[in-house]
Structure formats: C-alpha cells, structure tokens
C-alpha cells in the first residue's frame, strides 16, 4: 500500500467576522484520503459549505487552525515552495480574474516554465509552451500577443489549464472551473480534464456545486455541508443511491433535462431554512439538524462516520445496532 497522494487530516479552519468577532468553523474536522493513482475527486456542496475554503487550505492560501495536510506523507508546510508548486497546481473559478488584466497571459506560462519547470533555454521554453497549448486545444500564435480581455472565457480557462500542466503536476485543484462558462462549452473543458487524467496521469480535486458534471467525470465524491463532509464514496454510487438526507435533497432539487419529470420535480418540497446562515454553522451536534426531515433527539450530538460498503456517511440513521 503506497502512501496516499494527498491526506487531509482532521483539518479545521476558523474564521471570525463582524465587529464582535463572531467565530465559525468554515471547515470542521475534515478528513480526506486521496490514493496515489490518477483519479478525479469531486467535492460538492452549496455555497457556504466550505468547499472553496478547503481548496485554499490545500493550496496553502489559508493555514488551518487544527490538523494538517500531507502530500505524499510530508506536511505541505515542510515542503519547499518550488517542489510544492511542481506537484500541485490550481485552476481558478473565474477565468478573467485568474490573469492580471494588465499583463499578457503568456507571461505566466513563460514564468511557470522558467521558474517551476526550470527551463533556461528560450527555444525549449517556447516549444514546451506551444506543445502544451495545442494539447489543450489552443493555437500558440493566437495566444502569444493578446491581453486577457481579448480572449473568451473558455479560451482563458484553457490557458489556465495549460499553465497548470506545464510542470506536469501530480495534482490539480480546480475550484468550480466551469461554473462561469457557458453551458455548451462546459463539457469541452470537462472532457479535457478527463483526457488529462487518462493520458497524463494527473489527479484532480474538482470543487463544484453541479452534481451532473460531478457524476459525469469523477471517480470519488465527497458531499460537504456547512464545513463537514456528510457523505463520501464512489461518485456513481453516492449520486445514484444517496444515503445522507442532505445528499438526497440535493439530488431531488436538481432540475432534470427531461420535461416529463416536471411534475415529480415540482412535488418535491424542500424544507428550507428560515434561519439566518450563521445559526446553522454554530448548531450543536449534526449541522443539518434544522433542515433534516428525519431529525431525532440523538442528532443533538454530532454523529461519527458509519461505513456502508465503500461509502462513508455521517448520520445517525445508519448506526448499526
């Protein structure tokens, strides 16, 4: 059993906001193990679930208050900057924000090739860039002299991907990489991710709120709610036979692309929280207690993880007697 590629070990991130320093755990005691083989691991949840914070923790943008993150067995804060960036690269949600509007994006590709890949020779550098650009479906000559505003969102996102691929990383952390793109272009980027995983052996952590794309491309999935993972396992299984009440609600809320399912979708009513969000974050016990149709008095203490086959669920409903 080789070491896992990435291990998130009991990680908690606490934020405080507001004048009186209201503290809340954006990420609460999260555990993730990513095996050392090429796979796409989705982290899904609504806004405020902590998924973006988790991505930033892995990318060393935020530092956890408790717990640690290990890459191939080593604490990420003990790995030197260059090695870390050779192995882990990000893709941002907003393609236009990912590049400085005042600089040409090609500059970042050149810098990555120079600083992280370590190429000194100019010719070699341009060659690598041209090759990577065509791998993601872009043309070197179309790209090299333009500024971000001259590209479309889809093209910029491909540029981001090309830049992230230059050092041949082991892991790419993609934070909602397609949510700002037009619907008909999303599948192209998603297919590109799959191609990169299959051909180059790169693993992805794919943060999303779109369960349909998660189903389409990911191998494993973790569903987050208010900072905790409530269910995780092989994505096809979790998304077709959801165990946790929240996952079930998520799947029922998804609009279907089949107008015949209209009545069914309309009839599913969600008990949506009338509370302000903060109260959910500081709820004692299971965080889903205010919305859960099956809430019991037991739920006032947070349930541990129960394993049903290869799916882990955090819900008292699955306690084995």
């Amino acid at each position, binding site marked *: 059993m080789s070491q896992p590629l990435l291990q998130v070990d009991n990680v908690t991130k606490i934020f405080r906001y507001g004048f009186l320093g209201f503290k809340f755990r954006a990420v609460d005691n999260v555990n993730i193990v990513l095996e050392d083989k090429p796979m796409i691991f989705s982290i899904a949840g609504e806004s405020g679930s902590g998924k973006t914070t988790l991505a930033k923790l892995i990318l060393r943008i935020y530092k956890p208050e408790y717990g640690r993150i290990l890459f191939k067995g080593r604490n990420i804060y003990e790995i030197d900057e260059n090695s870390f960036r050779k192995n882990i690269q990000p893709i941002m949600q907003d393609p236009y924000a990912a590049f400085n509007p005042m600089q040409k994006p090609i500059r970042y590709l050149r810098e990555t090739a120079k*600083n*992280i890949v370590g190429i000194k020779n100019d010719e070699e550098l341009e060659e690598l860039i041209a090759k990577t650009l065509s791998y993601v479906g872009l043309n070197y000559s179309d790209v090299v002299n333009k500024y971000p505003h001259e590209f479309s969102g889809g093209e910029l996102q491909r540029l981001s991907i090309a830049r992230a691929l230059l050092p041949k990383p082991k892991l790419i952390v993609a934070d909602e990489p397609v949510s700002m793109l037009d619907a008909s272009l999303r599948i192209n980027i998603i297919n590109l991710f799959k191609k990169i995983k299959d051909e180059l052996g790169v693993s992805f952590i794919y943060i999303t709120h779109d369960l349909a794309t998660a189903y389409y491309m990911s191998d494993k999935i973790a569903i987050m709610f208010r900072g905790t993972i409530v269910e995780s396992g092989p994505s096809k299984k979790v998304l077709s036979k959801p165990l946790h009440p929240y996952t079930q609600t998520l799947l029922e809320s998804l609009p279907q692309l089949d107008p015949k399912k209209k009545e069914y979708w309309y009839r599913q009513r969600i008990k949506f929280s009338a509370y302000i969000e903060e109260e959910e974050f500081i709820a004692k016990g299971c965080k889903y207690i205010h919305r859960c149709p099956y809430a019991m008095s037991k739920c006032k203490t947070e349930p541990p993880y129960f394993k049903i086959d290869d799916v882990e669920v955090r819900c008292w409903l699955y306690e084995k007697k």
Partner: protein
Amino acid sequence: MNIANVAQKLQILGETVKALFRYKRFRIGLIIIAIIVALTITSMFSPARYKQWYAYPKDKPPQFSSLDLLLGTTTNGRPVFWIIANALANSLYIGLLTAVIGSHIGLIMGLLAGMFHGKRIETAFILLIDSFIVMPGLPILIVLALALKQHMTIATIPLILSIIAWAWPARNVRSITLSVMSRDFITTATYSGIRFHNILIHEVMPYVLGWHLTNFINTIIWAIGMETALAVFGLSILSEDTLGTTIYWVLNYNALFRGLWWWFLPPVVFLILIFIGFYLISVTVSWYLNPRLRGGGAQ
C-alpha cells in the same frame, strides 16, 4: 526591461495624458498651474535689490509705470510683484520636494505593509503608519520648527514636513496593495513561481502607480498649506519669500486694516489658485483611474 518595453510604457503614458486632456477639469487645472509656473520662471529675473528693505518707496499702490511697481510695494518698501514671483517659486519648490520625499516614503511603506499581510512583521508596519496618522500634524511641526529654527532653510523645511507627510500616502497605498494581493491572479503569479519582488513590481505596482500620482499631487498641496500655516505662526524662514511668509508680514504690519489690498490679496489669491489647480488635476486623475466611474473600459 528593454527598449521596446520602455517605449511601450511611454506610449501608454502619452495616451493617458491625451485622454485626460479631454476633460475640461483637467485642462483648467493644467492652465492654472501653467500660469503659475510661468510666473515662477519670471522670478529668475528679479532685480537684485528687491530683497532689500526700503529699496523702494513704501506703501505704494499698483502703478503701471514699471514692472517692479506692477503690484505696488509693501510697508517694508519692497515690490510686491517680485515678492510674489519668488514666493510662488519657493512655495512650489517646498511643495514639490516634500511630495518627492514624503509620498515616495509613503509608497514604499505602504507597499511593504500590504505585501507582508499575514506575516508578523505586518503589525510593526501598521503600528508605525497608524501612529503617524493619528499624531496631530501641525502641533508636531510647530514643535519641530521651534526646535530646529537655526537649521531651517528652504531646502530643509521639506525634510521636516516629510516626517509627517508620508503617513496618509502609506495608508492609501497599503489599502490598494491589500486589495490587489487578495485577487486570484496573485495566486496564479505565485504558482508560476514569480518571486516577491517581481510580484511587487509587475503585478501590484501597475495598480498602485495611479494612486501614487494622486498622493503626490495631494502632498504638494498639503505641504504648501502646512508651510503657510507655520509661517503665519512666524515659524517659517522669515528672511525668505514664500506665500506663507508674505502673509506673515501682511499680518505683522496690519495691512488688512490699513487697506493695502495689493499686498494682502495676491498671496491669498495665488494660494487659492494653486490649490484649485492641483486639486482639479488630482481629481481628474483619480476619477480617470477608477474604472467604475469611467464606464468600465479596460485600462
């Protein structure tokens, strides 16, 4: 940084100036300052004796007979016209030098304070900047002026003023730097292996430079105003002519009540004109820099 880059940056600068020219506010401000600078240049031709007291008949109202007497004379028997010309030159000089020193110190402090966000040294920077902002400027300058009276010359007043002048620009630059550092493209830059100093110069500075220009101009105005305030207290260099010291002598000789309008009006009018001129330029520049106000065009 090669010739092509520099040429390109100069071209962008040229285009920006041309764009600014389209605004009436900017043109008016520039014209006012141009007139003042023209007057300043004439000060180079001041006759040697204009500094001597009683070299001319005193308290004379304006006469068109000669250039010297164009604005009359003071109770000290000095020609107001040449006094004003030199006063403008000195005041502008003080303003510019303070701006050069003070706003650049502010720029560096602000940039560093912003870029060290999250690190422990940031607190030291914030403490330093905020202490200087909170300190009451004029009283401190008064104390300093009193203490350093012997050493004050037109060249050293800017140094004293700079001690206070750097704080607001630093705060301003820090907040811009912080907001730039929180943007996604800084993550891209970090993950492209770009080092700290390169991030500072190529990613952050382009956003900060516009504000730095505004800070620079505002410091000019501030410095001229501060020197005037000190002068009115008698704490400036009374042997030299600045707009401030002119007002000091006006007050000292009670020119207001004695009806010597040709003496007390010019410094006040020119002070106002300088403020308005620079303000119009500064406001147009900062308005132009704000993409939201301008209509969202790319820079």
